[in-house]
């Protein structure tokens, strides 16, 4: 009699162990070379002359100005984009109107426009040699080569992040809870603060997180509009470029390491959200 337990069975929906481990090994090797190596290289280069040299370069006026500017830009553009994302998601999911698909395509547009082209658009619209830009400069409100331009460029490239995260979640949640609250006599704002916002808070945080990471790290669009004036319009990424080109490797990589840490924290929080609040995120992030 054959003892079934002695025979090694493989389920019909599995690959052979050899194939499985080969694929896993390829995944590890690929990500090690493509992703982990550059990440580690940032920290290795930053600490090439020791921790003190690295910290000293971060305390330099250039670095401090850049960090301050980048934080300011993010503190302005991210909340604005969050407001836009909430408004757009509300408009799109709570009302039925013609051209909804087209509106969504327009909101997604910045994802498929090169950041450099985005910066170019802003220069052409608000630059000193455009009609509007010339008038604004004459009034003493320059946009390009100044803070407003950097904020606009940052908002352009991060524009879809919050809306894209909220729209699928709000479609899935439907309108029933809001309708119930309305029948109970709640005002519009009350419905939003007490019913909608608690339901979308994790998805909102998720979108804000990604928006912030991109906002602090944006380079292409900001390079075009900022003019890279030290102490005035040089953000962290543009300062990294300038220091790197001046062969200040430790300084450039130390600033880069700060941004890399920010990226790691973003990924950590994002993964935590995906694990703990999967049911309240867009379906594509549940895994």
């Amino acid at each position, binding site marked *: 009699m054959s003892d079934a337990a002695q025979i090694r069975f*493989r389920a019909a929906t599995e690959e052979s162990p050899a194939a499985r481990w080969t694929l896993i090994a390829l995944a590890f090797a690929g990500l090690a070379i493509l992703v982990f190596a550059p990440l580690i290289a940032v920290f290795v280069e930053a600490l090439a002359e020791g921790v003190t040299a690295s910290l000293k370069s971060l305390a330099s006026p250039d670095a401090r100005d850049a960090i301050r500017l980048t934080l300011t830009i993010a503190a302005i553009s991210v909340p604005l984009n969050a407001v836009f994302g909430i408004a757009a998601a509300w408009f799109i999911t709570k009302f039925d109107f013609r051209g909804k698909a087209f509106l969504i395509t327009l909101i997604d547009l910045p994802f498929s426009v090169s950041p450099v082209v985005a910066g170019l658009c802003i220069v052409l619209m608000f630059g000193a040699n455009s009609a509007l830009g010339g008038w604004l400069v004459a009034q003493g409100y320059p946009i390009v080569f100044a803070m407003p331009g950097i904020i606009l460029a940052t908002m352009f490239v991060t524009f879809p992040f919050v809306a894209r995260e909220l729209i699928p979640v709000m479609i899935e949640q439907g309108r029933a809870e809001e309708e119930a609250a309305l029948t109970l006599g709640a005002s519009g704002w009350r419905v939003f603060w007490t019913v909608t916002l608690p339901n979308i808070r994790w998805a909102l945080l998720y979108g804000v997180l990604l928006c912030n990471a991109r906002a602090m790290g944006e380079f292409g669009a900001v390079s075009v509009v900022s003019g890279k004036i030290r102490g005035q319009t040089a953000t962290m990424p543009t300062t990294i470029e300038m220091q790197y080109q001046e062969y200040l490797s430790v300084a450039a990589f130390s600033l880069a390491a700060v941004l890399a840490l920010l990226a790691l924290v973003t990924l950590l929080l994002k993964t935590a959200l995906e694990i703990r609040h999967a049911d309240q995120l867009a379906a594509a992030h549940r895994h």
Partner: protein
Amino acid sequence: MHIEIDEISKQFGTTAALHPVSLAIPSGALVALLGPSGSGKTTLLRILGGLEFPSSGRVLFDGRDATGLSVQERRAGFVFQSYALFRHMTVFDNIAYGLNARPRATRPTKAEIARRVTKLLDLIQLPEIGARYPSQLSGGQRQRVALARALAIEPRMLLLDEPFGALDAKVRKELRQGLRDIHDTTGLTTVFVTHDQDEAMELADLVVVMSMGRIEQIGKPQDIRARPATPFVRDFIGA
């Protein structure tokens, strides 16, 4: 083909899905595995098809030990509860799939495959739908296509998991007769799983009543009705 199940058991972790069960299915029979959900009937069917492997015991096909045969080697025509049609293929390609998947040496010619698919479409009385995609079919049509696809590989037996489960009452009645007719034409040993005692009693030659991983009674429909062997069987078929 004569099927013999010899002291088959199945453990999932610490829970026993099947206590050792034994059953002989005569060649050409139409057998129903009847029981509530969790009775082990689907597990037993999947063990016959080679989709699940027993923790102990043997399966014999025509007296030969088939326990270690892979699912591909078993040549069991399996119809899934969800039908599991390939959505990206036409009905024609779905039915031809098993023939196209054969190694080159034993693969029929294109013309021969086309001939066989056409014949099967006639058998399931849907000769016109070869070019359609599964998403364009009704539930009843999908079930018949799944049956034709299983028959295309010239199976040694036909295994069906709740073949009428996803259909409404009217279509279900029609398709019952369809399955009976196909069984009678092909003469294949056929095992189907159901939780519907009317379906089992009306369609099967032999009914196997299962509960909690055990076989409660094996018998002809009229015998089970007349003489239920256990209180469970009495309750279940009386319901």
